[in-house]
C-alpha cells in the first residue's frame, strides 16, 4: 500500500485538474483573421483533424499527469519493501535487549555482542531525515541521530534487570506516536519466551534474534530463610532453582560467617540447608550455583535476623496459653523473664487477652489508655465466625470475641483491609481480631476452646511463638525485589545502607535500586529490615519464543535473521522512497509534453526550410 511522508501535500492534486478546467472553461474566443485561403485550411483540417485531436488530448493527459506526478513527488510517496539504502524517511525505534539474559555466552560470544552489531548496522544505514530512538532494558526511550545512538549502543552492557519486550514495544510506539513519518520498531533480543507479552498500539515490528539453539542454564529463582527472627540455634535456608529442565548443579549456601553448605540441586527443585547456630543480629545469606553460560543468575542473597528467645511471664490460670508457653520454654523459644507478659497487660511488652470477667473490661481499657495504646475492647460481637486465613494464621472457628476498636480515624477507615501498617494482624469476618500498637498486642478472644478452636489445633504453639518472638517485637521488613522495582519503606525507616554507603530516605516512601545485593533499612540506629535486590527469576529461563507466539502477540511482526538487520529494519515500515521515481516520471512527462507541443512547430520549421 502506498504511503506518504507528507500526506497534506496531496491537496495539491487538485492542481491536476487545472489543465482540464482550463481546457473546458477558460477557452477564449480566438481573434478572427480574414484569410482568403481558408479553403486550404478547411481541407487540411478535414484531413488531419483526427490526428491533431488525438495530439491535443494526449497533451492534456500528459500535462494532467505531469502535475499529478509533481504533487505526488512532493507528498513523499513510499511503498513497501524498500531496501536499507533506498528507504524512505522513517521513524525507527530500536529495542536493544541488554537484560540479564543478554549476558549469556553463546558460541563464545555474549548474546549482547551478537545483538550490538546489527544495531550498529541499522543505525549506520539511517539517513539524516530518519527519526531514531534507542530503548534498552532501563526503559528510557532515547532519541538522537545515528551517530549519537551508535555511541550509546556501543556503551550498552548487560544489566541485572528484566526487559518485558511487550512493554518495551508499547513504549517505543508511544515515543513515536507524534511522528508523521512511517513508523516501525526493531526488537533486537534473545527473545526469551518469558519476556514476551502483548503490546499496546499497532504498527510494523521486526524481530531480530540470534540463530541457533539456546544454551542450557540453571539459576536461583528464590531464596527463603523461613519465619524470622531465628533463634540462636539458627534455621534453614531454602533455595528454589529454575532453568533448563533436568539441569543439575551444586549449590553453596553461606549464612553469615558460617561455613558454606553445598548440595546438589536440579531445575524446578528446592535445596534446603541449615545454618547452624548464630549469634543475635542481622546476617547475610548467599546462595551460589556453579558457574554456567549465564553467570548473573547464579547468585542470590537475602538476610536473616537472629534474636534471643523472648523473656516472658504467663499465668497458670490461662491453661492453654501456659501449656503452649511451657512447650516453647522447653524448646528454647521462650525464657522466663519479665520482658513480655503473655495473656494480660504487663509493664512491658504484652500480649493481651480479654478478661474472663466482663466486669474488669473497663479497667483494662483504661489501663490500655494509660499505656497510650490506641485500641480498645468493645462489646461482645454477636454470632460466631472464623479467622480469615492468612500468612499468620489459618482458618479457625471463633465462637466468642470482643470487638476491637481503634481511636485513629485512619485505622478505622482502613479496617477491613488487613495489613501491618494499620496494626491489624488477624481478622475475623473482616473485623480486627488481633491488633498491635507498639509493643502491645490485643486479641479479640481468649485463647481457650470456649472462645475459639485454635487452642485445640496443632497451629496453636507456633502461633504463640509468632506472637511472642515476632509480632510483639514488631514486624521485620524483609523484601525481595528485582532491580528497579519499587518497594514501600516502613514508616519508621530513616536510611538505607548498602555496602557501607548510607542513603537517607523518608519513611513510607517508595524505594528502588538498580544494584543487586542487600539494602539494610535503618530506623535511626536500629536495623528494621532488608531489601534484597535479586535478579528476576524469569530471566533464567532462556528458551526462545516461537515465531507463531510472536506473531500472535504482535500481529504483523516479521522475524528475521540478524545478518539482514538493516534491510529488514528499513523494510519493516515497508517503505521505499518513491520521490525519485515520481520526479523521473514527471521529467519524462515534461519531455513528452515538449515533444508533443513542439511537433507542430517542428514540422513548421522543416516545411519553411
Amino acid at each position, binding site marked *: 500500500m502506498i504511503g506518504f511522508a507528507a500526506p497534506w501535500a496531496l491537496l495539491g492534486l487538485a492542481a491536476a485538474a487545472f489543465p482540464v478546467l482550463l481546457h473546458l472553461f477558460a477557452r477564449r474566443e480566438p481573434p*478572427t483573421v480574414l484569410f*482568403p*485561403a481558408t*479553403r486550404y*485550411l478547411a481541407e487540411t483540417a478535414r484531413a488531419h483533424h483526427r490526428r491533431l485531436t488525438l495530439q491535443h488530448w494526449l497533451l492534456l493527459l500528459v500535462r494532467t499527469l505531469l502535475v499529478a506526478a509533481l504533487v505526488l513527488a512532493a507528498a513523499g510517496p513510499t511503498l513497501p519493501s524498500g531496501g536499507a539504502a533506498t528507504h524512505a524517511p522513517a521513524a525507527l525505534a530500536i529495542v536493544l535487549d541488554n537484560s540479564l539474559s543478554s549476558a549469556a555466552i553463546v558460541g563464545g560470544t555474549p548474546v549482547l555482542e551478537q545483538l550490538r552489531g546489527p544495531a550498529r548496522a541499522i543505525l549506520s544505514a539511517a539517513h539524516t531525515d530518519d527519526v531514531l530512538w534507542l530503548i534498552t532494558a532501563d526503559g528510557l526511550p532515547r532519541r538522537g541521530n545515528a551517530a549519537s545512538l551508535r555511541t550509546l549502543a556501543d556503551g550498552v552492557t548487560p544489566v541485572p534487570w528484566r526487559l518485558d519486550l511487550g512493554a518495551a514495544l508499547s513504549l517505543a510506539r508511544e515515543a513515536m506516536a507524534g511522528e508523521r513519518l512511517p513508523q516501525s520498531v526493531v526488537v533486537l533480543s534473545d527473545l526469551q519466551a518469558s519476556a514476551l507479552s502483548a503490546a499496546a498500539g499497532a504498527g510494523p515490528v521486526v524481530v531480530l534474534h540470534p540463530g541457533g539453539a539456546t544454551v542450557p542454564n540453571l539459576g536461583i529463582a528464590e531464596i527463603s530463610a523461613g519465619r524470622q527472627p531465628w533463634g540462636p540455634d539458627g534455621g534453614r535456608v531454602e533455595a528454589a532453582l529454575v532453568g533448563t529442565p533436568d539441569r543439575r548443579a551444586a549449590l553453596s549456601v553461606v549464612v553469615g560467617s558460617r561455613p558454606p553448605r553445598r548440595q546438589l540441586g536440579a531445575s524446578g527443585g528446592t535445596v534446603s540447608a541449615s545454618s547452624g547456630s548464630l549469634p543475635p543480629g542481622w546476617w547475610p545469606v548467599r546462595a551460589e550455583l556453579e558457574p554456567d553460560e549465564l553467570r548473573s543468575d547464579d547468585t542470590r542473597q537475602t538476610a536473616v535476623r537472629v534474636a534471643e528467645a523472648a523473656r516472658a511471664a504467663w499465668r497458670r490460670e490461662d491453661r492453654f496459653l501456659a501449656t503452649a508457653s511451657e512447650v516453647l520454654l522447653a524448646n528454647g523459644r521462650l525464657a522466663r523473664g519479665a520482658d513480655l507478659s503473655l495473656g494480660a497487660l504487663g509493664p512491658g511488652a504484652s500480649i493481651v487477652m480479654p478478661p474472663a470477667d466482663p466486669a474488669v473490661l473497663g479497667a483494662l481499657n483504661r489501663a490500655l489508655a494509660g499505656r497510650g495504646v490506641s485500641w480498645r475492647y468493645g462489646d461482645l460481637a454477636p454470632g460466631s465466625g472464623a479467622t480469615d486465613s492468612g500468612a499468620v494464621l489459618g482458618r479457625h472457628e471463633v465462637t466468642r470475641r470482643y470487638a476491637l476498636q481503634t481511636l485513629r480515624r485512619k485505622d478505622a477507615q482502613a479496617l477491613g483491609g488487613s495489613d501491618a501498617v494499620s496494626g491489624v494482624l488477624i481478622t475475623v469476618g473482616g473485623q480486627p481480631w488481633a491488633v498491635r500498637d507498639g509493643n502491645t498486642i490485643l486479641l479479640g478472644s481468649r485463647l481457650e476452646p470456649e472462645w475459639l478452636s485454635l487452642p485445640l489445633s496443632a497451629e496453636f504453639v507456633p502461633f504463640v511463638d509468632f506472637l511472642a518472638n515476632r509480632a510483639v517485637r514488631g514486624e521485620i521488613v524483609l523484601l525481595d525485589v528485582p532491580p528497579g522495582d519499587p518497594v514501600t519503606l516502613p514508616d519508621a525507616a530513616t536510611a538505607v545502607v548498602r555496602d557501607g554507603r548510607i542513603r537517607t530516605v523518608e519513611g513510607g516512601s517508595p524505594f528502588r535500586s538498580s544494584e543487586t545485593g542487600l539494602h539494610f533499612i535503618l530506623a535511626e540506629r536500629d536495623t528494621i529490615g532488608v531489601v534484597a535486590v535479586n535478579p528476576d527469576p524469569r530471566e533464567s529461563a532462556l528458551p526462545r519464543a516461537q515465531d507463531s507466539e510472536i506473531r500472535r502477540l504482535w500481529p504483523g511482526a516479521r522475524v528475521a535473521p540478524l545478518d539482514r538487520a538493516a534491510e529488514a529494519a528499513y523494510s519493516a515500515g515497508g517503505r521505499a522512497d518513491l520521490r525519485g521515481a515520481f520526479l523521473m516520471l514527471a521529467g519524462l512527462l515534461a519531455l513528452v509534453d515538449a515533444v508533443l507541443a513542439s511537433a507542430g512547430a517542428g*514540422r513548421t520549421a522543416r516545411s519553411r526550410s
Partner: protein
Amino acid sequence: MTRLYVGRGMPAAVASPSTARLDLLDPAEVARLGGLEVVTEGIVEGFLAGLHRSPRRGFSVEFAEHRMYQPGDEPRYLDWRLLARSDRLYVKQFEEETNLRAMLVLDTSRSMEWSGAPEIRLTKRMYSERLLAALALVLLRQRDATGLITFDESVRRLVPPRARHTQWHLLLRELMATPPGRGTAAEPALRRVVEQLRRRGLVVFVSDLLFDPPLALTALRFLRHRGHQVLVLHVMDPDEVELRGPAEARYEDPESGQAVVLRPADWADAYARTVQTAVNEWRAACRRQGISYERVTTDTPFGLALRQALVRSTGLA
C-alpha cells in the same frame, strides 16, 4: 536606400532608386515610388534594358529608329555605318507587325484584396495590376493588340484588344476603376475572352485561383482548343503559402464567410502540404492541356515575374 533584388530571396548590393532597376526591386517599395503609370514604365524600362535579346521579333521586321547602345545589346544590331560616321554606338531598333492579340484577364474578387502583411507587401490585386500593366506595356510596345477583362462574380470591365498608343492608358484606367468584387466566377470571364479573340492569341489569366477548378479549367481548356496560348499566373501572398498567425485564431474566408478555428503552429505543416498539393494539381491540370502555369508570390520582383510570364507566353528573354 532601397534593397535591390537580383533574384528571389537573394538580396544583393544596395543601390539608389535612381540607378536601380525597378523591375528587380521589392514590389512594395517600387509601388511606393509613384503612381501605377510611372512605376510601370520604370519597371518595363528596367526589364527591357536587362534583356539580352531584343523584344522585337516578327515575320516582317522593319527598321524603326536608333537608340544608344546599352551594355547587353547584341553587337549584331550595331549600326556600323553610323559608328563609322559619328564614332558613336547606336543600335538599330525594328518594328514588327502586330501579329498577336493578347487578352489579360484579372480576378478582382475580394480575396485578391488581401495581403498577409499590408505594411510591407502589396495586396494580390495591387501586385497583379502592376504586373499586368507592365505586361501590357511590353506587349503594346511590340504592337500586340492587348485587351483586358476584369471579373469577380461576373465580368466587370472589358477592354477589347487594340494596339493603339492610347490603349495602355485605357487599360490602366480600367484596371484602376474596377471595384473590388465579392465572389469569383472565372468561367464567364473566360468565355468572354473567346468572343474577343477571333484569331489565335495570347490569354494571360491572373488570379489567386481560390475557386473550384473544374469550370475554370474547362474554360481554359476551351481557349486552348481554340488555338490560343494560355498563361495562368497564380498569384499568392507568402502568408498563404506558409501559415502564420497568433497562437490560436479563427480564420475566415472574406468571400464565402467559411471559418476555421485552429492553432497555426499545429497546422502549419499540414497546411503547407495542402497548398503544395493544390498548386501541383493546378500545374498538372494546366500541363495536361498545354497551358502555361506560373505561381507568383507578391514579394517576387516584377521583373522576375514578367520574365516568367513572357518566357512562357512569347518566348521572350
